[in-house]
């Protein structure tokens, strides 16, 4: 082997100093733009709008059969909060890092002087605002249909606006939390990330979240319904001989704090994981 001498700066056109590496926010913005561009052209771009349209259609159909008012809206909102707010962010973000590893496209991004975490965060910011907008629109239109069809009318709609506000708050806080959790799980388990995320939600939301125990506090769906005050949570706890554990209650603001905490912790976890991971796809 040749003896090592002092390193040199190469001559020629390549010798000019490279520009300052992009700041973290700039890198996030570039990757967000790139992700949005790809999403807009992907064949799967219709899935989220189609699913978000389902409750609107259902509200319209149920209205035609004579159902109306707050009762109809609450039923439809349960579908939003139990299914769409959990499923759509998971679908959009579970494989955010995994798809880059599987297709090996991360090699183009992680060999740039930008922080690695700008990739998942850029993807997160490309998906979450549009999903919040989509689901908020779906909730608002469902609300309008339920509260405007006769015998309801503008007066009922006006009176029930606080319910819509609570529902929108649940969507605005829930989508980022679910998205961040899905992103974290998908980053930890890049093989079959969607299966892992849906399995996790089935276990925590479907099983633990349904038990009449403190475990409901682990379920994001419970907090969503707590903020929106729908379903059984809207009812005052019935007098019962069962132990106090079965009557879990938390102020809606507490649930909002839980969702914000989950969002922040999950995003920090994602950044920490990606920061120093060695991805060995292609071997």
């Amino acid at each position, binding site marked *: 082997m040749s003896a090592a001498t002092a390193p*040199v700066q*190469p001559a*020629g056109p390549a010798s000019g100093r*490279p520009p300052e590496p992009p700041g973290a926010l700039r890198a996030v913005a570039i990757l967000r733009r790139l992700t949005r561009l790809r999403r807009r052209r992907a064949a799967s771009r219709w899935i989220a709008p189609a699913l978000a349209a389902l409750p609107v259609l259902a509200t319209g159909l149920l209205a035609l059969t004579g159902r109306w008012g707050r009762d109809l809206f609450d039923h439809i909102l349960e579908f939003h909060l139990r299914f769409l707010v959990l499923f759509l962010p998971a679908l959009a973000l579970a494989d955010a890092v995994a798809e880059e590893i599987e297709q090996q496209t991360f090699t183009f*991004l992680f060999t740039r002087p930008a922080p690695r975490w700008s990739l998942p965060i850029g993807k997160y910011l490309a998906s979450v605002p549009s999903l919040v907008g989509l689901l908020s629109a779906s909730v608002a239109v469902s609300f309008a249909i339920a509260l405007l069809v006769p015998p309801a009318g503008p007066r009922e709609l006006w009176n029930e606006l606080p319910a819509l506000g609570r529902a929108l708050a649940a969507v605005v806080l829930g989508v980022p939390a679910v998205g961040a959790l899905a992103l974290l799980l998908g980053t930890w388990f890049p093989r079959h990330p969607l299966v892992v995320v849906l399995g996790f939600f089935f276990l925590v939301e479907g099983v633990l979240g349904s038990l009449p125990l403190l475990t409901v506090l682990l379920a994001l769906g419970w907090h969503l319904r707590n903020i929106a005050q729908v379903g059984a949570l809207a009812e005052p706890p019935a007098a019962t001989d069962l132990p106090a554990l079965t009557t879990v209650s938390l102020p809606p603001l507490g649930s909002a704090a839980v969702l914000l905490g989950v969002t922040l912790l999950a995003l920090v976890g994602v950044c920490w994981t990606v920061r120093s991971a060695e991805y060995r796809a292609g071997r």
Partner: protein
Amino acid sequence: MSRRRAASAAGPSPERQGASPVIVAEGVSCWYGPVMAVNELSVTIGPGITGLLGPNGAGKSTFMKLLVGQLRPARGRLTLFGETVWGHPALLGRVGYAPEHESNYDEITGLEFVAALTELQGFSPEEAGERARAAIARVDLTAAQDRRIGEYSKGMRQRIKLAQAMAHEPAVLILDEPLSGCDPLAKNRILGLIRELGAAGTTVLVSSHVLHEIEAMTSEILMMDKGRILAEGNIYEIRDLIDRHPHRIRVVCDRPRALAAALVREEAVTSVQVEAEALVLETRRPDECYPLVPRVARAEGVHIRALTSPDNNLQAVFRYLTEERARRAQGAS
């Protein structure tokens, strides 16, 4: 075969020995689970083009991934411009990397792809766009720059990868099998481009498992096998190694026994084995043997249907060098 320099033991060529290093690897090892992909690798690479040769699984791509900070050396030290690569993303501003795989963002256009990645190097959107267009023009893809990458052929994908690697004019360019899948025209274009970059002072490390591809770009090569550097130096020295190792030539003909009897008398032929419709001769002077066989066949009235060499590939040279090294190690112990 022409020789510009007498055969010598593997090692960096004299002009390289004086060059200042850009890439320095000292005892670098990297594992994939229980498999050691790079094994105690020590090498110094200076400005200009260096070809990294080796069969599949030799550790070339792993070495390149270590160089661009995608993998962390399990042992040893790897530096670029004197700085450790792993954990120093700012260093990547001076590196361009074209990976071996063909996967890409199929939904976006070639121009959008190169421009976005150039922006990630720290350029403004306008400058990144200009640089992306210029780089795409250099790889002769301007006509297709607004088409989605999903519609690109394999050769076009190679060229767009090359464009993204060089759009920011890096000081070090790491190209993993950049000619694979390219048609001859594209190959020539890329070869010319790599030579231009090397002549301009860029440190280019380019891998291939095809000797003549590397030969067309540079005479400085590193030969890798099983995660180690087998030989390092000038390509003509490697050519000599190829010539020195026993070389087999398979001749398919109508009367193999008659031809074998005539060939065995020739000095350049070490041994001959006869098969049903062919013969396999062994020689240490293949340059002499290739014209000799048809000449003898003509004289004997033998009709040759095919003349091939199972050893005329890098795999055979790697095998030979590996055995040679094992022999030397045994001798030393």
